[in-house]
Protein backbone atom coordinates (compact mmCIF):
# COMPACT_ATOMS: atom_id res chain seq x y z
CA UNK A 1 0.00 0.00 0.00
CA UNK A 2 1.44 3.35 -0.87
CA UNK A 3 1.43 5.86 1.99
CA UNK A 4 3.01 8.75 0.07
CA UNK A 5 1.70 9.66 -3.34
CA UNK A 6 3.40 12.37 -5.33
CA UNK A 7 1.65 13.46 -8.50
CA UNK A 8 2.83 15.86 -11.20
CA UNK A 9 4.84 17.85 -8.73
CA UNK A 10 6.62 20.94 -10.00
CA UNK A 11 8.65 23.19 -7.76
CA UNK A 12 10.25 26.53 -8.53
CA UNK A 13 12.70 28.58 -6.52
CA UNK A 14 11.67 31.91 -8.00
CA UNK A 15 12.47 31.36 -11.68
CA UNK A 16 14.51 28.24 -11.15
CA UNK A 17 12.69 25.02 -11.96
CA UNK A 18 14.05 22.68 -9.27
CA UNK A 19 11.59 19.77 -9.52
CA UNK A 20 10.09 18.80 -12.86
CA UNK A 21 6.85 16.88 -13.03
CA UNK A 22 7.75 14.37 -10.33
CA UNK A 23 5.33 11.50 -9.74
CA UNK A 24 6.07 8.69 -7.32
CA UNK A 25 4.32 6.33 -4.92
CA UNK A 26 6.10 5.30 -1.77
CA UNK A 27 5.09 2.18 0.08
CA UNK A 28 4.22 2.07 3.71
CA UNK A 29 6.81 0.50 5.99
CA UNK A 30 9.47 0.46 3.35
CA UNK A 31 12.74 2.23 2.86
CA UNK A 32 13.09 4.46 -0.16
CA UNK A 33 16.40 5.97 -1.21
CA UNK A 34 16.84 9.12 -3.30
CA UNK A 35 20.12 9.21 -5.18
CA UNK A 36 21.56 11.52 -7.78
CA UNK A 37 24.31 14.08 -8.26
CA UNK A 38 24.64 17.21 -6.16
CA UNK A 39 22.01 19.85 -6.88
CA UNK A 40 19.61 17.47 -8.62
CA UNK A 41 16.78 18.23 -6.20
CA UNK A 42 16.84 15.32 -3.74
CA UNK A 43 16.73 17.54 -0.66
CA UNK A 44 14.14 19.73 -2.27
CA UNK A 45 11.77 16.83 -2.87
CA UNK A 46 12.32 15.54 0.64
CA UNK A 47 11.35 18.92 2.04
CA UNK A 48 8.09 18.99 0.09
CA UNK A 49 6.98 15.90 2.01
CA UNK A 50 6.80 17.65 5.38
CA UNK A 51 6.20 21.08 3.88
CA UNK A 52 9.49 22.48 5.10
CA UNK A 53 9.61 24.34 1.82
CA UNK A 54 6.84 26.54 3.26
CA UNK A 55 9.64 28.41 4.99
CA UNK A 56 11.25 29.55 1.76
CA UNK A 57 9.39 32.53 0.38
CA UNK A 58 10.40 32.11 -3.23
CA UNK A 59 9.09 28.55 -3.50
CA UNK A 60 6.14 27.87 -5.81
CA UNK A 61 4.63 24.40 -5.90
CA UNK A 62 2.08 22.79 -8.21
CA UNK A 63 0.85 19.22 -8.29
CA UNK A 64 -0.18 17.07 -5.37
CA UNK A 65 1.50 15.30 -2.48
CA UNK A 66 -0.80 12.94 -0.63
CA UNK A 67 -0.04 11.14 2.56
CA UNK A 68 -2.48 8.41 3.44
CA UNK A 69 -4.75 9.71 0.73
CA UNK A 70 -4.90 13.26 2.03
CA UNK A 71 -3.33 16.03 0.01
CA UNK A 72 -0.97 17.67 2.49
CA UNK A 73 -1.12 20.92 0.56
CA UNK A 74 -4.79 21.13 1.36
CA UNK A 75 -5.28 24.37 3.30
CA UNK A 76 -7.04 22.64 6.19
CA UNK A 77 -4.01 20.50 6.94
CA UNK A 78 -2.41 21.13 10.30
CA UNK A 79 1.22 21.50 9.32
CA UNK A 80 2.54 21.01 12.85
CA UNK A 81 0.75 17.70 13.32
CA UNK A 82 1.84 16.68 9.85
CA UNK A 83 5.43 17.29 10.84
CA UNK A 84 4.98 15.35 14.05
CA UNK A 85 4.05 12.39 11.87
CA UNK A 86 7.02 12.97 9.61
CA UNK A 87 10.33 13.25 11.38
CA UNK A 88 13.32 14.79 9.65
CA UNK A 89 17.07 14.57 9.96
CA UNK A 90 19.12 17.15 8.10
CA UNK A 91 22.24 17.04 6.01
CA UNK A 92 24.22 19.04 8.54
CA UNK A 93 23.95 18.45 12.26
CA UNK A 94 21.84 21.21 13.76
CA UNK A 95 21.47 20.60 17.50
CA UNK A 96 19.96 23.36 19.61
CA UNK A 97 22.32 25.24 21.90
CA UNK A 98 20.83 23.34 24.80
CA UNK A 99 21.80 20.31 26.82
CA UNK A 100 21.79 16.87 25.22
CA UNK A 101 18.74 15.98 27.27
CA UNK A 102 16.86 19.11 26.27
CA UNK A 103 17.63 18.52 22.61
CA UNK A 104 15.96 15.15 22.64
CA UNK A 105 13.14 16.16 24.96
CA UNK A 106 12.33 19.18 22.81
CA UNK A 107 9.91 17.42 20.47
CA UNK A 108 7.98 15.44 23.10
CA UNK A 109 7.72 18.57 25.22
CA UNK A 110 6.21 20.72 22.51
CA UNK A 111 3.76 17.95 21.78
CA UNK A 112 2.58 18.12 25.32
CA UNK A 113 4.51 15.54 27.31
CA UNK A 114 5.28 17.03 30.72
CA UNK A 115 5.83 13.98 32.85
CA UNK A 116 9.47 13.81 33.86
CA UNK A 117 9.58 10.03 33.96
CA UNK A 118 8.00 9.68 30.58
CA UNK A 119 10.43 12.21 29.15
CA UNK A 120 13.41 10.45 30.69
CA UNK A 121 12.27 7.26 29.08
CA UNK A 122 11.78 8.81 25.67
CA UNK A 123 15.18 10.50 25.85
CA UNK A 124 16.92 7.26 26.77
CA UNK A 125 15.14 5.21 24.13
CA UNK A 126 15.76 7.76 21.44
CA UNK A 127 19.44 8.10 22.30
CA UNK A 128 19.79 4.35 22.32
CA UNK A 129 18.04 4.22 18.98
CA UNK A 130 20.60 6.65 17.59
CA UNK A 131 23.51 4.65 19.03
CA UNK A 132 24.54 7.54 21.22
CA UNK A 133 23.31 6.56 24.67
CA UNK A 134 26.47 4.87 25.87
CA UNK A 135 28.63 7.82 24.96
CA UNK A 136 26.50 10.52 26.58
CA UNK A 137 24.48 8.90 29.32
CA UNK A 138 26.62 10.55 31.99
CA UNK A 139 26.64 13.92 30.27
CA UNK A 140 22.99 14.48 29.52
CA UNK A 141 23.14 17.91 31.11
CA UNK A 142 26.08 19.04 28.99
CA UNK A 143 25.72 21.29 25.98
CA UNK A 144 25.18 19.53 22.68
CA UNK A 145 27.80 21.84 21.19
CA UNK A 146 30.55 20.00 23.04
CA UNK A 147 29.95 16.87 20.94
CA UNK A 148 31.94 16.02 17.84
CA UNK A 149 30.33 16.41 14.45
CA UNK A 150 29.39 12.78 14.28
CA UNK A 151 27.96 12.75 17.76
CA UNK A 152 25.96 15.87 16.99
CA UNK A 153 24.38 14.25 13.97
CA UNK A 154 23.45 11.18 15.93
CA UNK A 155 21.90 13.45 18.51
CA UNK A 156 19.77 14.99 15.75
CA UNK A 157 18.61 11.52 14.77
CA UNK A 158 17.70 10.79 18.36
CA UNK A 159 15.79 14.05 18.45
CA UNK A 160 13.78 13.06 15.39
CA UNK A 161 13.02 9.62 16.80
CA UNK A 162 11.76 11.17 20.02
CA UNK A 163 8.56 12.47 18.42
CA UNK A 164 7.71 8.96 17.32
CA UNK A 165 6.91 9.75 13.71
CA UNK A 166 5.27 7.46 11.13
CA UNK A 167 7.48 8.59 8.31
CA UNK A 168 11.14 9.47 8.73
CA UNK A 169 12.88 11.75 6.23
CA UNK A 170 16.64 11.62 6.30
CA UNK A 171 18.80 13.96 4.25
CA UNK A 172 22.18 12.25 4.05
CA UNK A 173 21.94 11.39 7.72
CA UNK A 174 25.20 9.49 7.80
CA UNK A 175 27.38 11.72 5.68
CA UNK A 176 29.00 13.05 8.85
CA UNK A 177 29.23 9.69 10.61
CA UNK A 178 32.00 7.15 10.87
CA UNK A 179 31.40 3.71 9.39
CA UNK A 180 30.60 2.11 12.69
CA UNK A 181 27.93 4.58 13.63
CA UNK A 182 26.77 4.47 10.04
CA UNK A 183 26.37 0.77 10.25
CA UNK A 184 24.44 1.10 13.47
CA UNK A 185 22.17 3.66 11.92
CA UNK A 186 21.69 1.50 8.89
CA UNK A 187 20.76 -1.39 11.12
CA UNK A 188 18.46 0.87 13.04
CA UNK A 189 16.83 2.01 9.84
CA UNK A 190 16.17 -1.60 8.96
CA UNK A 191 14.62 -2.12 12.36
CA UNK A 192 12.50 0.99 12.20
CA UNK A 193 11.10 -0.16 8.91
CA UNK A 194 8.93 -2.58 10.89
CA UNK A 195 6.80 0.34 12.00
CA UNK A 196 7.85 3.32 9.97
CA UNK A 197 8.13 4.48 6.42
CA UNK A 198 11.63 5.78 5.74
CA UNK A 199 12.88 8.01 2.96
CA UNK A 200 16.58 8.58 2.83
CA UNK A 201 18.69 10.84 0.64
CA UNK A 202 22.17 9.51 0.20
CA UNK A 203 25.27 10.03 -1.86
CA UNK A 204 26.50 6.66 -0.94
CA UNK A 205 25.22 4.22 -3.51
CA UNK A 206 26.40 1.31 -1.44
CA UNK A 207 24.25 2.60 1.34
CA UNK A 208 21.25 2.88 -0.94
CA UNK A 209 21.87 -0.61 -2.17
CA UNK A 210 22.34 -1.95 1.34
CA UNK A 211 19.38 -0.47 3.12
CA UNK A 212 16.65 0.52 0.72
CA UNK A 213 13.78 -1.38 -0.80
CA UNK A 214 13.23 1.10 -3.56
CA UNK A 215 15.48 3.69 -5.09
CA UNK A 216 14.73 6.83 -7.07
CA UNK A 217 17.42 8.28 -9.28
CA UNK A 218 17.23 12.04 -9.87
CA UNK A 219 18.86 14.21 -12.45
CA UNK A 220 18.33 17.92 -12.91
CA UNK A 221 15.08 17.88 -10.97
CA UNK A 222 13.62 14.91 -12.81
CA UNK A 223 13.04 11.37 -11.62
CA UNK A 224 14.94 9.35 -14.19
CA UNK A 225 14.16 6.00 -12.73
CA UNK A 226 12.25 4.72 -9.72
CA UNK A 227 12.12 1.03 -9.03
CA UNK A 228 13.07 -1.75 -6.68
CA UNK A 229 16.58 -1.20 -5.44
CA UNK A 230 17.88 -4.57 -6.51
CA UNK A 231 16.44 -3.96 -9.97
CA UNK A 232 17.78 -0.44 -10.29
CA UNK A 233 21.31 -1.37 -9.34
CA UNK A 234 21.50 -4.67 -11.20
CA UNK A 235 19.47 -3.91 -14.22
CA UNK A 236 18.71 -0.22 -14.69
CA UNK A 237 16.22 0.47 -17.43
CA UNK A 238 17.63 3.89 -18.21
CA UNK A 239 20.99 4.58 -19.76
CA UNK A 240 21.55 7.60 -17.52
CA UNK A 241 20.98 5.56 -14.40
CA UNK A 242 23.43 2.99 -15.55
CA UNK A 243 26.01 5.64 -16.33
CA UNK A 244 25.57 7.15 -12.89
CA UNK A 245 25.70 3.99 -10.82
CA UNK A 246 28.68 2.68 -12.66
CA UNK A 247 30.45 5.98 -12.12
CA UNK A 248 30.74 6.71 -15.81
CA UNK A 249 28.65 9.75 -15.53
CA UNK A 250 29.68 13.32 -14.90
Amino acid at each position, binding site marked *: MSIVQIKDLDLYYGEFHALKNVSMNINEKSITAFIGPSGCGKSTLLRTL*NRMNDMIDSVKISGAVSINGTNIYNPTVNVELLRKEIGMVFQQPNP*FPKSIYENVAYGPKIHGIRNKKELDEIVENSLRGAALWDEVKDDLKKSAYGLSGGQQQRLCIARALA*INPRILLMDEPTSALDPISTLKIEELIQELKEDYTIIIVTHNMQQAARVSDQTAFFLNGEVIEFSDTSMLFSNPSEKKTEDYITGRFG
Partner: protein
Amino acid sequence: MKQLDAERQMRRRKRKNTIFHALFLSSTLFGVIALGMLLIQILSDGLGWLNWEFLTNNASRKAEKSGIKAAIAGTLWMMSITAPLSFIIGVSTAIYLEEYAKKNWFNRFIQTNIANLAGVPSIVYGLLGLTIFVRVFGFGKSVLAGSLTMTLLILPIIIVASQEAIKAIPVTQRNASFALGANRWQTIIRVVLPSALPGIMTGSILSFSRAVGETAPLIVVGAVAYITTLPSGVFDKFTVMPIQIYTWANLPQEEFHHVAAAGIIVLLFMLLSMNAIAIFLRNKYQKKN
Protein backbone atom coordinates in the same frame (compact mmCIF):
# COMPACT_ATOMS: atom_id res chain seq x y z
CA MET B 1 63.78 34.45 -3.91
CA LYS B 2 60.06 33.93 -3.87
CA GLN B 3 60.38 32.73 -0.33
CA LEU B 4 62.17 35.93 0.65
CA ASP B 5 59.50 38.02 -1.04
CA ALA B 6 56.81 36.16 0.77
CA GLU B 7 58.56 36.69 4.06
CA ARG B 8 58.99 40.38 3.45
CA GLN B 9 55.36 40.68 2.52
CA MET B 10 54.38 38.63 5.54
CA ARG B 11 56.38 40.89 7.80
CA ARG B 12 54.53 43.84 6.36
CA ARG B 13 51.16 42.20 6.98
CA LYS B 14 52.14 41.27 10.48
CA ARG B 15 53.35 44.77 11.15
CA LYS B 16 50.06 46.09 9.87
CA ASN B 17 48.25 43.70 12.13
CA THR B 18 50.34 44.81 15.10
CA ILE B 19 49.75 48.47 14.34
CA PHE B 20 46.02 47.96 14.05
CA HIS B 21 45.97 45.80 17.13
CA ALA B 22 47.51 48.71 18.97
CA LEU B 23 45.02 51.11 17.37
CA PHE B 24 42.03 48.98 18.29
CA LEU B 25 43.34 48.53 21.79
CA SER B 26 43.87 52.27 22.19
CA SER B 27 40.36 52.87 20.91
CA THR B 28 39.07 50.69 23.68
CA LEU B 29 41.35 52.29 26.22
CA PHE B 30 40.26 55.72 25.06
CA GLY B 31 36.78 54.95 26.29
CA VAL B 32 38.07 53.42 29.49
CA ILE B 33 40.35 56.38 30.18
CA ALA B 34 37.60 58.90 29.45
CA LEU B 35 35.47 57.03 31.92
CA GLY B 36 38.30 57.02 34.43
CA MET B 37 38.82 60.77 34.19
CA LEU B 38 35.12 61.42 34.52
CA LEU B 39 34.91 59.19 37.55
CA ILE B 40 37.93 60.76 39.20
CA GLN B 41 36.48 64.19 38.68
CA ILE B 42 33.12 63.19 40.10
CA LEU B 43 34.53 61.22 43.00
CA SER B 44 36.89 63.97 44.07
CA ASP B 45 34.00 66.44 43.93
CA GLY B 46 31.35 64.39 45.58
CA LEU B 47 32.76 61.62 47.72
CA GLY B 48 33.21 63.89 50.72
CA TRP B 49 29.53 64.77 50.67
CA LEU B 50 28.31 61.22 50.41
CA ASN B 51 27.05 59.75 53.65
CA TRP B 52 24.04 58.02 55.08
CA GLU B 53 22.16 61.29 55.66
CA PHE B 54 22.58 62.13 52.01
CA LEU B 55 20.71 58.98 51.09
CA THR B 56 17.94 59.42 53.64
CA ASN B 57 17.37 63.17 53.58
CA ASN B 58 15.19 65.13 51.26
CA ALA B 59 16.38 68.04 49.23
CA SER B 60 16.97 71.19 51.21
CA ARG B 61 18.01 74.77 50.65
CA LYS B 62 21.01 73.96 52.78
CA ALA B 63 23.70 71.97 51.05
CA GLU B 64 24.77 70.06 54.13
CA LYS B 65 21.21 68.95 54.85
CA SER B 66 20.40 68.02 51.27
CA GLY B 67 19.65 64.45 50.43
CA ILE B 68 18.50 62.42 47.50
CA LYS B 69 15.87 60.15 49.07
CA ALA B 70 12.86 61.32 47.08
CA ALA B 71 14.82 61.21 43.84
CA ILE B 72 16.01 57.65 44.42
CA ALA B 73 12.48 56.57 45.20
CA GLY B 74 11.18 58.36 42.12
CA THR B 75 13.75 56.78 39.84
CA LEU B 76 13.00 53.33 41.25
CA TRP B 77 9.29 53.89 40.78
CA MET B 78 9.76 55.06 37.25
CA MET B 79 12.04 52.18 36.29
CA SER B 80 9.79 49.59 37.87
CA ILE B 81 7.25 50.52 35.21
CA THR B 82 9.52 51.53 32.35
CA ALA B 83 11.86 48.52 32.41
CA PRO B 84 9.35 45.67 32.19
CA LEU B 85 7.00 47.58 29.92
CA SER B 86 9.62 48.63 27.41
CA PHE B 87 11.19 45.18 27.50
CA ILE B 88 7.91 43.42 26.78
CA ILE B 89 6.80 45.83 24.09
CA GLY B 90 10.26 46.02 22.56
CA VAL B 91 10.88 42.29 22.36
CA SER B 92 7.33 41.65 21.16
CA THR B 93 7.74 44.14 18.37
CA ALA B 94 11.09 42.66 17.40
CA ILE B 95 9.60 39.17 17.31
CA TYR B 96 6.72 40.36 15.21
CA LEU B 97 9.00 42.06 12.71
CA GLU B 98 11.55 39.27 12.48
CA GLU B 99 9.36 36.19 12.71
CA TYR B 100 5.90 37.05 11.52
CA ALA B 101 5.90 40.17 9.41
CA LYS B 102 5.61 39.53 5.70
CA LYS B 103 7.79 41.64 3.48
CA ASN B 104 5.15 44.16 2.50
CA TRP B 105 5.07 47.93 2.44
CA PHE B 106 3.33 48.15 5.79
CA ASN B 107 5.97 46.21 7.68
CA ARG B 108 8.73 48.02 5.86
CA PHE B 109 7.03 51.19 7.00
CA ILE B 110 7.00 50.00 10.61
CA GLN B 111 10.69 49.14 10.28
CA THR B 112 11.64 52.50 8.85
CA ASN B 113 9.47 54.12 11.43
CA ILE B 114 11.28 52.42 14.29
CA ALA B 115 14.69 53.28 12.91
CA ASN B 116 13.49 56.84 12.72
CA LEU B 117 12.05 56.88 16.22
CA ALA B 118 15.45 55.82 17.50
CA GLY B 119 16.74 59.07 16.10
CA VAL B 120 14.03 61.35 17.47
CA PRO B 121 15.61 63.59 20.10
CA SER B 122 14.56 62.89 23.65
CA ILE B 123 13.22 66.38 24.08
CA VAL B 124 10.58 65.65 21.44
CA TYR B 125 9.45 62.66 23.48
CA GLY B 126 9.11 65.08 26.34
CA LEU B 127 6.72 67.20 24.29
CA LEU B 128 4.83 64.05 23.32
CA GLY B 129 4.54 62.81 26.89
CA LEU B 130 3.40 66.19 28.12
CA THR B 131 0.66 66.43 25.53
CA ILE B 132 -0.54 62.83 25.47
CA PHE B 133 0.01 61.40 28.93
CA VAL B 134 -0.12 64.46 31.14
CA ARG B 135 -2.86 66.37 29.35
CA VAL B 136 -4.93 64.12 27.04
CA PHE B 137 -4.93 60.98 29.17
CA GLY B 138 -5.07 63.14 32.26
CA PHE B 139 -2.38 61.29 34.16
CA GLY B 140 -1.01 64.62 35.35
CA LYS B 141 2.66 65.10 36.13
CA SER B 142 2.77 61.67 37.64
CA VAL B 143 5.06 58.67 37.89
CA LEU B 144 2.89 57.01 35.27
CA ALA B 145 3.21 59.84 32.76
CA GLY B 146 6.99 59.94 33.24
CA SER B 147 7.36 56.17 32.99
CA LEU B 148 5.30 55.91 29.83
CA THR B 149 7.26 58.72 28.22
CA MET B 150 10.53 56.99 29.04
CA THR B 151 9.11 53.71 27.77
CA LEU B 152 8.40 55.22 24.38
CA LEU B 153 11.81 56.88 24.39
CA ILE B 154 13.85 53.70 24.87
CA LEU B 155 11.54 51.41 22.94
CA PRO B 156 13.20 51.79 19.53
CA ILE B 157 16.62 51.00 20.97
CA ILE B 158 15.35 47.78 22.52
CA ILE B 159 13.50 46.85 19.35
CA VAL B 160 16.48 47.34 17.06
CA ALA B 161 18.89 45.50 19.36
CA SER B 162 16.45 42.63 19.82
CA GLN B 163 15.93 42.37 16.09
CA GLU B 164 19.64 42.09 15.47
CA ALA B 165 19.92 39.41 18.13
CA ILE B 166 17.03 37.44 16.68
CA LYS B 167 18.40 37.75 13.15
CA ALA B 168 21.65 36.15 14.26
CA ILE B 169 20.01 32.83 15.15
CA PRO B 170 20.89 30.40 12.35
CA VAL B 171 18.03 29.23 10.18
CA THR B 172 19.12 25.60 10.64
CA GLN B 173 17.98 25.78 14.26
CA ARG B 174 14.58 27.07 13.31
CA ASN B 175 14.33 24.33 10.69
CA ALA B 176 15.15 21.68 13.26
CA SER B 177 12.35 22.94 15.45
CA PHE B 178 9.79 23.20 12.66
CA ALA B 179 10.64 19.72 11.45
CA LEU B 180 9.79 18.40 14.89
CA GLY B 181 6.31 19.80 14.50
CA ALA B 182 6.83 22.90 16.58
CA ASN B 183 4.74 25.81 15.44
CA ARG B 184 6.22 29.23 15.00
CA TRP B 185 5.35 30.43 18.45
CA GLN B 186 6.89 27.40 20.13
CA THR B 187 9.99 27.81 18.00
CA ILE B 188 10.23 31.43 19.02
CA ILE B 189 9.79 30.76 22.72
CA ARG B 190 11.95 27.68 22.96
CA VAL B 191 14.67 28.12 20.36
CA VAL B 192 14.92 31.68 19.11
CA LEU B 193 14.48 33.68 22.28
CA PRO B 194 16.81 31.65 24.52
CA SER B 195 19.62 32.04 22.00
CA ALA B 196 18.85 35.69 21.31
CA LEU B 197 18.56 36.66 24.95
CA PRO B 198 22.18 37.77 25.47
CA GLY B 199 21.93 40.23 22.60
CA ILE B 200 18.54 41.42 23.75
CA MET B 201 19.89 41.93 27.24
CA THR B 202 22.77 44.06 25.98
CA GLY B 203 20.42 46.36 24.13
CA SER B 204 18.12 46.55 27.10
CA ILE B 205 20.91 47.36 29.54
CA LEU B 206 22.03 50.23 27.38
CA SER B 207 18.55 51.61 27.07
CA PHE B 208 17.60 51.20 30.72
CA SER B 209 20.73 53.08 31.64
CA ARG B 210 19.65 55.74 29.28
CA ALA B 211 16.22 55.96 30.87
CA VAL B 212 17.77 56.28 34.30
CA GLY B 213 20.12 59.04 33.20
CA GLU B 214 17.78 61.01 30.98
CA THR B 215 16.94 64.55 32.03
CA ALA B 216 15.47 66.66 29.27
CA PRO B 217 12.17 64.86 28.56
CA LEU B 218 11.34 64.59 32.24
CA ILE B 219 11.92 68.29 32.68
CA VAL B 220 9.23 68.79 30.07
CA VAL B 221 6.89 66.08 31.33
CA GLY B 222 7.18 67.65 34.74
CA ALA B 223 9.06 65.61 37.26
CA VAL B 224 9.21 68.15 40.07
CA ALA B 225 12.40 69.69 41.35
CA TYR B 226 11.51 69.83 45.04
CA ILE B 227 9.39 67.20 46.70
CA THR B 228 9.63 65.67 50.14
CA THR B 229 7.06 62.90 49.90
CA LEU B 230 7.75 59.61 48.24
CA PRO B 231 5.35 58.36 45.60
CA SER B 232 2.93 55.78 46.95
CA GLY B 233 1.16 55.12 43.67
CA VAL B 234 1.59 55.62 39.97
CA PHE B 235 -0.49 58.79 39.94
CA ASP B 236 1.69 60.55 42.48
CA LYS B 237 4.09 63.33 41.73
CA PHE B 238 7.75 62.43 41.70
CA THR B 239 11.25 63.52 40.93
CA VAL B 240 14.15 61.53 39.54
CA MET B 241 17.85 61.59 40.21
CA PRO B 242 19.08 63.41 37.10
CA ILE B 243 16.56 66.21 37.65
CA GLN B 244 17.60 66.58 41.26
CA ILE B 245 21.25 66.63 40.18
CA TYR B 246 20.54 69.15 37.45
CA THR B 247 18.71 71.38 39.91
CA TRP B 248 21.61 71.30 42.34
CA ALA B 249 24.17 71.92 39.62
CA ASN B 250 22.27 75.03 38.57
CA LEU B 251 22.27 76.65 41.99
CA PRO B 252 24.76 79.43 42.59
CA GLN B 253 26.27 78.03 45.80
CA GLU B 254 29.51 76.15 45.31
CA GLU B 255 28.55 73.55 47.95
CA PHE B 256 25.60 72.46 45.91
CA HIS B 257 27.90 71.53 43.06
CA HIS B 258 29.47 69.02 45.43
CA VAL B 259 26.04 67.83 46.43
CA ALA B 260 25.33 67.34 42.73
CA ALA B 261 28.51 65.28 42.38
CA ALA B 262 27.47 63.15 45.33
CA GLY B 263 24.14 62.63 43.59
CA ILE B 264 25.94 61.57 40.44
CA ILE B 265 27.90 59.00 42.42
CA VAL B 266 24.67 57.52 43.74
CA LEU B 267 23.21 57.52 40.25
CA LEU B 268 26.28 55.78 38.83
CA PHE B 269 26.13 53.24 41.61
CA MET B 270 22.56 52.51 40.65
CA LEU B 271 23.53 52.15 36.98
CA LEU B 272 26.40 49.86 37.91
CA SER B 273 24.15 47.59 39.92
CA MET B 274 21.71 47.42 37.04
CA ASN B 275 24.50 46.59 34.63
CA ALA B 276 25.87 43.98 36.98
CA ILE B 277 22.53 42.22 37.17
CA ALA B 278 22.08 42.32 33.42
CA ILE B 279 25.62 41.15 32.73
CA PHE B 280 25.13 38.32 35.15
CA LEU B 281 22.01 37.28 33.26
CA ARG B 282 23.75 37.68 29.95
CA ASN B 283 26.73 35.53 30.92
CA LYS B 284 24.46 32.91 32.34
CA TYR B 285 22.70 32.49 29.03
CA GLN B 286 25.56 33.16 26.69
CA LYS B 287 26.75 30.06 24.89
CA LYS B 288 29.10 30.63 22.07
CA ASN B 289 29.01 28.26 19.11
